[in-house]
């Protein structure tokens, strides 16, 4: 209100004075309201907060001082003047005591009056500013207090463990996660922590305490916690300096990294297996070439040709392996950026069969297709579905017997599309079935000898099926045949 036009209230029973001052102040750019008696003055002055009020002291109904009192009661920040022709020292004192800002003696010149009003408005601004500052300070104090309890609540409830100790190894602060990650039933503030922390963490704390100069950096250590070392915890210890730069203590944050460790182990096992699988064909090729190059062995042309052929075949299997590995890594990245389109499973099967025709003919395999009518398309990445079908069908060829059979059926089962690939091949032993989808697992027995493969084909199939929220199952009888059943949800977007 004060920023725009100031609101001024004139309370006076003299009509000429009311109108005159009103016009005068409006010309100066103020908003003016007038009241012709005390009662109206109180009504107006209390219903709305005016910036400045000028109240005549002597009015027929209510005394100006009473009007002042009433207005001040409701709006203590309204700056009030008492205007009167009967100025006396006593009334002036009294008026000021009640809360009047000033006295305007009648009669007054327009200049005098305007000057007084300007002073009143300045005062009003000061009052409002100090009110605002006061309010801000109160809010700050309130925030400070609630900030402290809020911080406390946050630290208590975070998943990371927090433990603060002072230079005497005494507990200064801790949260519940810290107890959990240190496998401690309880801690007391002020209690000595020595002997309660894992050795590795203690060693780091001692290291920090033994340093002459405080380096504001964290020291991290991983340690096993729990009765059976079931929890792997990463502790970051950071020195806490005092304002004068000396060491106040150490803050230890504890995070549960058990799951990350598990993934790390799986990953490094996978890398080990990849390295092993890559080394085997390389060693074989290197061996053959060394033999051919070794003049002293003097092998005949026939043998040399055989060894070169076998080297080429090992190189092919190495290439297959690298391609499979690339597929797996591509698949891990691709889940976000695969290109979904309407894929007809039957079309994919048919085109894949064309590729495998030669291989099937070599073994004189019969291929039987049982496709249900009106099979809907699925939203999928064509490359992935082709890869899935290719791996399944090529296995059905590879592990089949001479003059064997492959039966491929596609049907709709509730909300699922079902693909069954059944072969009359070597089949699986019970213990082989469980490992079938693991990376690099290949059923090794007298019937599979001589069949090459990377050991990744079915694990890729499973990854693809899983990525579409489908399922894959295998039924098999050793020496009789194997049947793979894949279910993929229809209408996925």
């Amino acid at each position, binding site marked *: 209100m004060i920023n725009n036009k100031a609101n001024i209230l004139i309370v006076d029973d003299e009509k000429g004075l009311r109108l005159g001052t009103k016009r005068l102040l409006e010309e100066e750019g103020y908003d003016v309201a007038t009241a012709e008696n005390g009662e109206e003055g109180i009504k107006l002055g209390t219903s709305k907060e005016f910036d400045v009020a000028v109240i005549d002291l002597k009015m027929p109904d209510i005394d100006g001082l009473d009007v002042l009192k009433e207005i001040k009661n409701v709006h203590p920040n309204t700056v009030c003047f008492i205007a009167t022709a009967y100025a006396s020292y006593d009334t002036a004192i009294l008026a000021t005591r009640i809360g009047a800002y000033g006295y305007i003696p009648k009669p007054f010149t327009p200049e005098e009056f305007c000057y007084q009003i300007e002073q009143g408005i300045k005062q009003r601004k000061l009052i409002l500013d100090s009110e605002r500052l006061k309010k801000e300070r109160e809010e700050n104090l309130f925030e400070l207090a609630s900030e402290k309890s809020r911080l406390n609540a946050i630290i208590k409830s975070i998943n990371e463990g927090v433990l603060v100790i002072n230079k005497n190894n005494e507990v200064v602060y801790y949260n519940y996660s810290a107890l959990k990650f240190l496998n401690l039933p309880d801690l007391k503030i002020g209690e000595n922590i020595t002997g309660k922390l894992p050795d590795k963490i203690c060693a780091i704390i001692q290291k920090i305490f033994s340093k002459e100069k405080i380096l504001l950096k964290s020291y991290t250590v991983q340690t096993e916690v729990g009765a059976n070392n079931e929890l792997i915890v990463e502790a970051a210890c950071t020195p806490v300096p005092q304002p004068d730069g000396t060491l106040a203590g150490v803050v230890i944050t504890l995070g549960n990294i058990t799951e990350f460790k598990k993934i790390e182990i799986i990953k*490094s*096992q996978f*890398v*080990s297996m990849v*390295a*092993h699988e890559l*080394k*085997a064909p390389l*060693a*074989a090729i*290197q*061996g*053959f070439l*060394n*033999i051919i190059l070794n003049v*002293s*062995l003097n*092998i005949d042309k026939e043998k040399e040709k055989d060894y070169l052929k*076998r080297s080429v075949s*090992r190189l092919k299997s190495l290439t297959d392996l690298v391609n499979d590995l690339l597929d797996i890594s591509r698949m891990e990245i691709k889940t976000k950026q695969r290109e979904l389109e309407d894929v007809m499973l039957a079309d994919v099967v048919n085109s894949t069969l064309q590729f495998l025709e030669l291989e099937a003919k070599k073994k004189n395999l019969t291929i039987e297709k049982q496709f249900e009518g009106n099979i809907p398309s699925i939203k999928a990445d064509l490359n992935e579905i082709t890869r899935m079908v290719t791996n399944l069908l090529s296995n059905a060829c590879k592990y089949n017997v001479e003059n064997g059979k492959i039966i491929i059926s596609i049907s709709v089962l509730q909300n699922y599309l079902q693909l069954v690939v059944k072969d009359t091949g070597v089949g699986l032993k019970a213990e082989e079935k469980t490992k079938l989808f693991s990376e690099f697992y290949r059923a*090794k*027995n007298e019937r599979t*000898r001589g069949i090459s493969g990377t050991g990744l084909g079915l694990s890729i199939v499973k990854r693809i099926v899983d990525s579409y929220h489908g399922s894959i199952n295998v039924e098999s009888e050793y020496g009789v045949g194997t049947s793979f059943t894949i279910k993929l949800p229809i209408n996925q977007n």
Partner: protein
Amino acid sequence: MSSRKINKILLVDDDIDLLEQTKLLLESKGFKVVTAEDSEQGFKAFQQENPDAAIIDLIMEQMDSGFILCYKIKKTEHGKNIPVYLLTSATYETGFKFSASTQEEKEWIKCDGIIHKPVVVEELISKLENFS
């Protein structure tokens, strides 16, 4: 145990290419070589042929097939007295952390040493001949 002349060597490896290569190289050095492609055949060949040494691939049908065959051979009366070596491309770098360099490790793994692929035949022969 006295050092004795090695004549007949049993080779067990499920990689038929490597099996043939090592066989050829050892034969070129004048050894008689008996081969087998898995641990079961390997043990049969050991019993029938009474070889003077055995070289066994570690990972065959199972991750531990080589260990088990070694163990079975070393448990026999004849096996105790001949050098039995494990053949592997698994090394520290590939994450399979074992060796058979100390007596304790040899005792535990039940083999006389580990030979890394690719096989350097001269090294292999010198190892076998210096076995005591």
